[in-house]
């Protein structure tokens, strides 16, 4: 079907009506040769407020036009093929389910591929068939439906108001304020019930957010191996490792606050300023052992573990929102949304030489909260 249409009219060659790429003329409402059939279904006598849409009219050729018949037959074949193929892929899906087992990663991959491809093929074939059916087999019918006013007419509104007032009158709701008010009074506490009933969904926080399980003499264990560690074990400058408190290595609730990151510096690199919060000491060089420093691993922004340690810049970067702390300078914040430095865990060694905590953190660990102070 060429877009170049030259028509030879009676007056001689006329310029083309349409040139390549220009918008097509509007579709004909009626077929030019055959008079389009207006479907006039035998309408029963309808009430005036009937909401059935208008008379459908066929936009296009008559269905028994030979071109349409051929077109329809071709479309029918295509649709039938789609549906038949869908049958086979559907069977293949069942076969794949029965035949392909799972249990290892490789088998799961094969099962997923087998089930997925057959199921997808079935669905897409069904969809394609249905779509071609609509677009090429069903006649191109158009309907016009009237929109009625959504706003009810005044008579109806009036009638509603009357019935409403009548009913309200029966209930004496307006006439007897005492009933009205005591009803509201009576139901009020019940509204608070859903909130009150949730009281036991959890304990009150109390002071639990202010403390962790670290205590004087508690050993530092390497997370995973659960082995204690001496300064000699941790002597290579630039070392970093994740630490958990001895006795709580399996307790996630405690680890959420007690996880610690241990870093070893070269001599002279570590320069922790003495920091106080109010009258409490919260950071000092005295809490390090042999240029080894321990900071809380829990970010003071919203609590992700701050694991990203860059040996060359001694930045501790939290991967969640890029809060960056300078580990050589008491984990002070140098970028990002965290507002407070990471709390420092006071370190010392015990009699066996293992690194232990001198005490708990001197300030609350993790994200800020209202009562933090």
């Amino acid at each position, binding site marked *: 079907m060429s877009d170049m249409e030259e028509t030879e009219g009676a007056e001689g060659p006329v*310029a083309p009506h349409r*040139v390549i790429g*220009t*918008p097509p003329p*509007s579709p004909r409402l009626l077929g030019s040769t055959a008079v389009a059939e207006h479907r006039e279904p035998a309408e029963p006598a309808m009430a005036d407020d009937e909401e059935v*849409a208008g008379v459908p009219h066929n936009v296009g050729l008559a269905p028994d036009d030979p071109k349409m018949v051929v077109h329809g037959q071709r479309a029918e074949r295509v649709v039938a093929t789609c549906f038949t193929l869908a049958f086979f892929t559907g069977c293949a899906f069942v076969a794949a389910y029965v035949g*392909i*087992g*799972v*249990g*290892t990663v490789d088998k799961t991959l094969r*099962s*997923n*591929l087998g*089930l*997925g491809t057959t199921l*997808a*093929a079935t*669905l*897409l074939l*069904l*969809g394609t068939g*249905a*779509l071609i059916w*609509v677009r090429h087999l*069903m006649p191109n019918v158009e309907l*016009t*439906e*009237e*929109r009625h006013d959504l706003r009810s007419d005044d008579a109806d509104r009036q009638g509603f108001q009357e019935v409403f007032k009548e009913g309200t009158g029966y209930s004496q709701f307006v006439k007897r304020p005492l009933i009205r008010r005591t009803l509201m009074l009576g139901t009020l506490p019940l509204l608070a019930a859903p909130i009150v009933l949730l009281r036991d*969904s*959890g*304990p*009150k*926080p109390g002071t639990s957010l202010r403390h962790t399980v670290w205590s004087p003499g508690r050993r530092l264990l390497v997370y995973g191996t659960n082995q204690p560690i001496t300064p000699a074990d941790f002597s290579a400058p630039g070392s970093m490792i*994740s630490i*958990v408190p001895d006795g709580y290595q399996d307790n996630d*609730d405690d680890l*959420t606050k007690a*996880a610690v990151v241990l870093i070893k510096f070269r001599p002279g690199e570590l320069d922790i300023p003495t920091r106080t919060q109010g009258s409490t000491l919260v950071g000092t060089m005295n809490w390090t052992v042999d240029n080894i420093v321990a900071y809380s691993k829990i970010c003071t*922004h*919203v*609590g*992700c*573990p701050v694991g990203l340690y860059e040996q060359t810049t001694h930045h501790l970067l939290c*991967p*969640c*929102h*890029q809060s960056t702390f300078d580990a050589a300078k008491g984990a002070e914040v140098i*970028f*990002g*949304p965290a*507002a407070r430095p990471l709390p420092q865990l006071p370190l010392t060694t015990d009699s066996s030489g293992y690194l232990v905590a001198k005490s708990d953190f001197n300030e609350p660990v*993790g*994200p*800020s*909260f*209202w*009562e*933090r102070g």
Partner: protein
Amino acid sequence: MSDTDFDVPKALSGTGSFLDDRFHGARGLRVLMRKVFPDHWSFMLGEIALWSFVILLLTGTFLSLFFVPSMNQVTYHGTYVKLDGIRMSEAYQSALNITFDVRGGLLIRQIHHWAADLFMAALIIHMLRIFFTGAYRKPREINWLIGIGLFTLGLLEGLFGYSLPDDQLSGAGLRIFEGALQGIPIVGTYLAFFLFGGPFPGHDIVPRMYIIHVLLIPGILLALISAHLFIMFHQKHTQMPGKGNTEKNVNGQPFFPYFMAKGGAWFFFIFGALVLLATFATINPIQLYGPYSPVAISSASQPDFYMGILEGSLRVMPAWEINFLGHTLSLSVLIPFALPLGIVLGGAALWPFFEQWATGDKSFHNINDRPRNAPARTATGVAAMTFYGVLWAEGANDVIADKLQIPLYTITWIARVMVFVGPALGYLITKRICLGLQRKDAAELLHGYESGIIRQLPNGEFIEVHQPVNEEKRAVLEAKPVPALLPGRGSADENGVPSPGSRGALGWARGVANRAFAETVPVEANGHGDGHHGNGHEVEAGAEHAAVGSAPAGSGHGQLPAGDAAEEEPREGG
């Protein structure tokens, strides 16, 4: 042979009579079967969300047969031997079980997750379509609000859904959620402890999220979706401007069998697309992340894309905390948590009413606007999209830094600037583009389209012949609303009383907004089918014309005469 030449089978007519005897359905069903649904591709976007929701229900039911919503710790000795001996929650173990030990489990799990993503993506696109075509206007404001409620619930539903397997990635997200909750003034720590049943992570959050995810929110969603569809049914769908489309009618194909068949086909295509994704694209590989541990974290830890704006807000915010009287107000957490999404969703919810206030337009609208014909609305929409988009991209800043080799902090700084500058630029540029497109439309209506036919005039000049636009195009171009200008501060009636709506600061604001909405390029149509209107040229009905301005001015095609169809002051109206 006529298509209607068949007998209705006894089984069908028998059942029909049986039901009608009891339920009086004949007339109602008849109306339904002939109900008209207009056809436009953008009208199908909401259905993507609808069918995705159905698929979510189906696949979710399957998953709920195998998932164990418990945080009891177990030691894994299952088929995924790489993690043999690891301590994990039963929830994570059951998720591994579904993936590797249930036939079709991985497929269904992935279909479910992809469908959730598609649901949210389709909602976003659908909301944008509604916004840019003005389909939220009277009488559809309530449906718009229901839609925003659906979107918000969908956010929560997705958040809880992907957190159920209790893997490292979603556990980090929950920790962030808890940390942010904790920062809320006065009640934050209580809320966090009540929701999680104690300190994070506790033992209660997974079972609680489970029941919210499979019962509570789906129930509310079902109710809201039903309401949304019923309202749309009852009010009838809007239409795009076009030939024969008026405010008082709907044109299209009948429900039975056309819309039914297309809807069914659409369902199969959506389902098929989701299955294809679930077969060939991995989503949420929990076995790689491992079970949640508060000591561990991965780079590129992001929530699913629809939470991206929240993530980006948290990353873009500089540090800001206020300590006073023994209390801490963590603004670097509270502002990102509440403000950007609050602005977007709250603004969206208020928008229909704001537009009514600004334009004074209280009429019914059943014909959609072309976005270019509502420049202030379109520009605001683009500004909102820019705001949302900048924060969404910032949520991916570490991945962008890694893949595109841009320094990490640079991206954050760019986002900090663009979150303010971007929407302003977006508004200005979009407004100008809309007005430019309007000018083009006006010119096309007036002068016709360039037909590509070059003619040589007797005096030797070459012109390009313009053809009048066809009737359909003409109907679309002419269906342009005329925005009204409300009486401003300067207007006063004969007694010198200014219009009450224009007084005070609010009145001034209303005037500013009104003028922004009313800025438009007027369209002149005379219905002759040729677009010309007495510019002094001979008009031959039906024949091709040289463009105006070509003969005297002696230049090429399509020159607009000065002052014609240029941007004019909006007409005064009431």
